[in-house]
């Protein structure tokens, strides 16, 4: 195995230094691999991707991308680290138009290059083209998700991080979104995705990490975990212990 594209080693992180949410979590993602993170509520799944994105301070441990250390990177330098990130909620600017949302996503690029890639995005996602001069607040949940992903891809990242892309979507939409993500991986983009829907996550991804209470519990190829009774135990057990 070559060096991982993303290597998260033993990080401790939390909004306040005295109240860590993650306690020594490690995750790795290889090139063109789709990795999902699952776990019960309060496991620290979202905190993990936020910490990688520099939105939650890391107090110990390291994050590196393609061998270079990006621990506690300033969030606006995500793009230079070849990472794109789609948050779970509020992932588009509802007061801006679709076009403006995309322009903002291209602001690290030159004007001409930005315009070229935005045009490509419109080709790939015709629904955005249709609403390009509308405020993003008119979009449905799925369309917003599409916009957010399209925006994230403008910088042509090597790693795309998504926080629960299926949240709040109809089953039909979920499968559509997942299809699209799968085809992305086939173009060489690695994906690290937080997912609530265990079944779907295990079905789509190459590997899966199960977190609980801010710690690694199990990980391995998704196909193996799908049949693992331990996964269910973690969900139930953690829920039971949490009171």
């Amino acid at each position, binding site marked *: 195995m070559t060096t991982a594209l993303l290597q998260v080693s033993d990080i401790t992180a939390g909004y306040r230094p005295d109240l860590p949410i993650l306690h020594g979590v490690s995750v790795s993602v290889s090139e063109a691999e789709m990795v999902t993170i699952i776990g019960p509520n309060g496991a620290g799944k979202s905190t993990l991707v936020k910490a990688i*994105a*520099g*939105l939650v301070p890391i107090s110990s441990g390291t994050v590196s991308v393609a061998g270079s250390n990006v621990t506690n990177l*300033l*969030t*606006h*330098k*995500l*793009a*230079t680290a070849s990472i794109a*990130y789609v*948050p779970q909620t*509020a*992932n*588009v*600017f*509802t*007061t*801006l138009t679709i076009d*403006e949302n995309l*322009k*903002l*996503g291209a*602001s*690290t690029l030159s004007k001409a290059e930005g315009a070229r890639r935005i045009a490509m995005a419109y080709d790939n996602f015709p629904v955005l083209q249709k609403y390009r001069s509308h405020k993003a607040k008119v979009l449905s949940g799925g369309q917003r998700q599409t916009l957010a992903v399209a*925006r994230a891809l403008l*910088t042509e990242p090597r790693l795309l991080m998504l926080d629960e892309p299926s949240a709040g979507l109809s089953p039909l939409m979920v499968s559509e979104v997942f299809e699209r993500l799968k085809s992305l991986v086939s173009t060489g983009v690695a994906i690290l995705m937080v997912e609530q829907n265990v079944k779907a996550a295990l079905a789509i991804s190459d590997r899966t990490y199960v977190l609980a209470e801010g710690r690694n519990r199990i990980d391995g190829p998704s196909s193996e975990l799908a049949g693992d009774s331990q996964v269910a135990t973690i969900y139930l057990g953690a829920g039971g212990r949490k009171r």
Partner: protein
Amino acid sequence: MLQALADGILTGSIIALGAIGLTLTMGILRFANFAHAELITWGAYMALGVLAITGVFAGPIGPFSFGLPLILATLVAAVLTAALALVVDYLVFRPLRSHTNHMTVVFSSFGVSLLVRMVILLIFGGSAEYYSDELQIAVRLMPGLRVMPDHLFTLGLTLVIVIALHFFLQRTRLGLSMRALAENPDLVRINGIDTRTVVRWTWIIGAALAAVAGVLYGMTVQLRPEIGFQLLLPLFAAAILGGVGNVFGAVVGGLIVGLAESFSVLFIPAGYKMAVPFIILLAVLYVRPSGLFGGMRGGAK
């Protein structure tokens, strides 16, 4: 009646200019800056200082009471006001922004406002000053309506600034980033934009507009260290009425507040005029807290 309308529009356009800066900082930086009024005063006095130091009086242009020196002084004042805003942000607001209670920043702006006003008092003294000792006589346009050329200039300049700012916010990357920042700072960072730069530019633009408003205001009234402070309530009323963060709204809000003040004098004693913005403010908060046109962010928590 006609005169009250004209006066209201004039006062309103000055309130509007000040309120644009306030609404931008309030919307984008997310705090009610009580010291914004002092940026206005500071700008007005800096222009006065530049006039006093250079001392060149090149004579007024056309029908106006001012000449090239004041225009140049205004540009210098805008730079100095932006500098003050950046220094204050660096020394006071930025360190406090991480504070758990975000109202601490609002409160500190209250203290800053006091400090700036008193420093102006120390430097320039408390007595009234004028850019020009010459009195400009109003031109009678029609029976019951007199306007001063300076006032028409003020109105025109306000319009130009509003249009320019509108294009800036709509058409440039920086303007786009500012609007985005008002909605969701984290998402702006995720998009690869350094919000610190955007914050700095917001201060620069807000402060420069404050300085221009200060000079225009100082041209129509007398300069004293309290001029900005007395505008504070009208500014807040205008910004909230128009919707926080909404530039166009701030202009309409400013005009409404100015007209309301002006017309109120026809019905209530002039002494209560200063309470008019407060009444408007209360009414907006009770009826439509997000303002007439909605803001970059609503008033609700």
